[in-house]
């Protein structure tokens, strides 16, 4: 028996025994199907992943032995354990022959003790749900750590939970960084991607002092110009002089073009970009090596870390991932942790501040389901705000408030079913593994069923049906994952995706050309299509904002709303894209739409400083210059000339 084959079928025409077995196995956490009719039993077997069949040898119409013999071509011994039962045919020769013919694992002579029958079946993973000590999976335990508060015991628990982590998702990394910073750890976090790339973060008493990624781009030049610390021509001059083995920063300091302090600020920004680039949409392995690390500069202290953390969650973590991530806790009460206080700076960051009343909602004992049902917030901003608070350790989910205890469990199960339904088996397994959080298929499936909770009571038929459907989908995905077909399908999906991505890339390029020609509507259509296929296209968010702002009618009533949306989109631009000419150009466009011409000009100038060939930025600067000139003319011109100009033939 493997995976989550915790479903049992009892085929027995003695209703007393049938009911007794059903009750006993249900108590043990199994999903139990019971019938006295062989035809119905067959149907159940074909529709459900039954792991064990209890069958009476003497049934109406057919003998139990013949029934099982007929099943074996479809249900091998590995798939289905059979336990024969009989009170009449009990002689040694019959038992021996029946066991041989059916490949049954056991023969129970009636009457037997129900407890003996129960011990014959490997207990299902659901059993853990009823044990007094719930052992959380390391990844789930990770997200509960902030609720433990401070103290030596809590510190050790944090350390041990970090040590216990193995394979996690790249989107879990901000939480791990936050935990290391909060617990004032010292040492090295080593991260290995599925492609074999290595990343490393070094911390000294909770201050990040080093980030190592195999980075081809340093971003240093862009950062220096963006900050305004260095002029492009000065940078070019230093770059063209012989380096004599010194880094660009040192050469700038030596040439007195930048102060050591300013360089540290820039290098901290560079670390931010590098950290941001570790937050990837794929599985990674991590380990933490404790070490006495000296506090050095540049570094990222806790205050600066908070703003970086905000940006990563706003820009890097996908909504789809967050939605699945929170599914396991959606029926748990949200509560404040010991770290929560009303003046915490995280509460004043845009992700939280832009959602009025969010703090009241998440700190008064409501569940996520209840908050979603209130329809007070849109899903994406809500998940992001919640995740930001969770990652800062300000809220946690009540361990005790499991799905089982919650009144809205049915709704929760339907949500899970909704997420799984229509997905192929590879996608289903990926989703299960995101919830369960481990690379080992057997472990994933067991952990997933643990998250589902025990089978709902038999009288809640609809809920039992949804529960069984989820378990069936999970079982099918698990079986498929174990078989060789998985890699084949994965390859096919990857090939299909590649073709779609190539198409999306070409749509993206076409959209960029359309934007240059100010054809915003067509560009927006193409950009939306491209983003739908590949949200990771380089700077696609920025081009989307460009197109949206291009369509803003300055005289329309929707202007302010459109600008607010554009500003929110800009919050979600990852740090590595914020030091690019296109970013400043787009921010300039938003400022211009707000009629904030001074800041618009600054941003267009920055865009030009980073990329002197950016024609669109130059064009915008000319437009702004002529606007300024017109304004000046009106104010400073001689009244006679001014009045004359109104009537002058153009």
């Amino acid at each position, binding site marked *: 028996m493997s995976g989550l084959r915790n479903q049992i079928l009892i085929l027995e025409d003695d209703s007393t025994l049938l009911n007794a077995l059903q009750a006993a196995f249900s108590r043990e956490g199994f999903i139990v199907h019971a019938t006295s009719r062989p035809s119905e039993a067959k149907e159940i077997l074909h529709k459900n992943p039954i792991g064990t069949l209890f069958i009476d040898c003497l049934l109406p119409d057919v003998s139990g032995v013949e029934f099982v013999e007929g099943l074996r071509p479809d249900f091998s011994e590995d798939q289905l354990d059979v336990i024969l039962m009989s009170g009449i045919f009990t002689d040694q020769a019959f038992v021996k022959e029946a066991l041989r013919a059916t490949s049954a694992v056991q023969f129970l002579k009636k009457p037997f003790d129900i407890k003996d029958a129960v011990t014959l079946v490997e207990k299902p993973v659901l059993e853990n749900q009823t044990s007094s000590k719930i052992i959380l999976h*390391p990844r789930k335990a990770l997200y509960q750590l902030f609720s433990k508060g401070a103290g030596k015991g809590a510190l050790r628990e944090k350390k*041990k939970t970090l*040590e*216990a982590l*193995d394979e996690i998702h790249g989107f879990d990394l901000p939480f791990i960084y936050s935990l290391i910073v909060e617990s004032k750890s010292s*040492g*090295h976090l*080593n*991260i*290995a991607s599925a492609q*074999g790339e*290595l*990343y*490393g973060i*070094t911390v000294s008493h909770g201050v990040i002092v*080093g980030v*190592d990624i195999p980075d081809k781009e340093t971003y240093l030049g862009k950062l220096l110009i963006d900050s305004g610390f260095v002029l492009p021509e000065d940078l070019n001059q230093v770059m063209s002089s012989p380096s004599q083995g010194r880094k660009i920063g040192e050469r700038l300091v030596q040439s007195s073009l930048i102060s050591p302090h300013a360089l540290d600020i820039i290098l901290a920004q560079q670390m931010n970009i590098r950290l941001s680039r570790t937050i990837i949409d794929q599985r990674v*392995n*991590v*380990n933490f*090596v*404790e*070490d006495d690390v000296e506090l050095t500069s540049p570094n990222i202290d806790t205050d600066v870390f908070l703003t970086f953390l905000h940006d990563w969650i706003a820009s890097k973590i996908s909504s789809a991932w967050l939605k699945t991530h929170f599914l396991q806790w959606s029926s748990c009460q949200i509560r404040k942790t010991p770290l929560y206080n009303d003046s915490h700076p995280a509460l004043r960051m845009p992700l939280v501040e832009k959602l009025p009343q969010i703090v009241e909602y998440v700190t008064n004992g409501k569940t996520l389901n209840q908050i979603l049902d209130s329809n007070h917030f849109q899903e994406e901003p809500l998940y992001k705000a919640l995740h930001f608070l969770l990652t800062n350790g300000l809220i946690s989910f009540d361990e005790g408030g499991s799905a089982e205890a919650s009144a809205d469990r049915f709704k929760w199960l339907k949500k899970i079913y909704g997420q799984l339904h229509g997905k192929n088996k590879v996608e289903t397994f990926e989703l299960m593994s995101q919830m369960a959080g481990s690379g*080992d298929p057997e472990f994933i499936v067991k952990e997933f069923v643990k998250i589902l909770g025990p089978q709902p009571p038999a009288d809640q038929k609809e809920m039992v049906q949804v529960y069984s459907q989820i378990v069936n989908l999970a079982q099918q995905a698990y079986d498929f994952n174990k078989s060789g077909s998985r890699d084949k399908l994965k390859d096919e999906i990857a090939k299909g995706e590649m073709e779609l991505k190539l198409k999306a890339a070409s749509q993206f390029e076409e959209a960029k050309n359309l934007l240059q020609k100010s054809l915003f509507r067509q560009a927006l259509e193409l950009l939306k299509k491209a983003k739908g296929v590949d949200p990771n296209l380089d700077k696609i968010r920025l081009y989307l904002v460009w197109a949206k702002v291009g369509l803003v009618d300055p005289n329309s009533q929707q202007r302010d709303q459109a600008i607010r949306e554009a500003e929110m989109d800009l919050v979600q631009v990852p740090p590595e894209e914020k030091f690019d000419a296109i970013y400043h150009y787009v921010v300039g466009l938003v400022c211009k739409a707000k009629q904030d011409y001074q800041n618009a000009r600054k941003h267009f100038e920055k865009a030009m400083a980073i990329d002197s060939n950016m024609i669109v930025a130059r064009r915008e600067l000319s437009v702004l210059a002529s606007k300024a000139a017109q304004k000046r003319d009106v104010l400073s011109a001689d009244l006679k000339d001014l009045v004359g100009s109104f009537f002058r033939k153009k």
Partner: protein
Amino acid sequence: MGKYEIKVDKATPQYKVTISGVVDEDIDFNAYSLSGAASVDLQLGMVKSINSCGIREWIKWIGTAGTAPVKYHQCPKIIVDQINMVQGFLPASGKVMSFYVPYYNEDSGSEKNVLFTYGKEFTDSAVNPPAAVKDDEGNVMEMDVVEAKYFKFIKK
């Protein structure tokens, strides 16, 4: 001594290497090529720390042993973690001969590293931990690692 120390005994083709200290971006393996070795024995009990830059350097360096058998002795936990996580940290021709396993007693808070040796506490496919590990006060200690993660390399 600086942050690290590497000693290579090339008196015979069976090279004996001892590494101690910190393995990070400052480590320079260039002077310690392992090419030409018939076999390499590494004593790692004194390695204190390793980061991602050090791991990259390590993989490049250990590759200089080519196909020669490489044996890792007295691996501390931080080395076992890298063996389990990073492809190539233990080369294809490599084998762990002994490694430390942390033990802990929850009541007294005592910690201890117990050396597991090939053929005794572990084999190519199984771990046979000592029947009982006690601290200095005689308290029974428990293994302080997630076994499925820590002993992963044994099934590699």
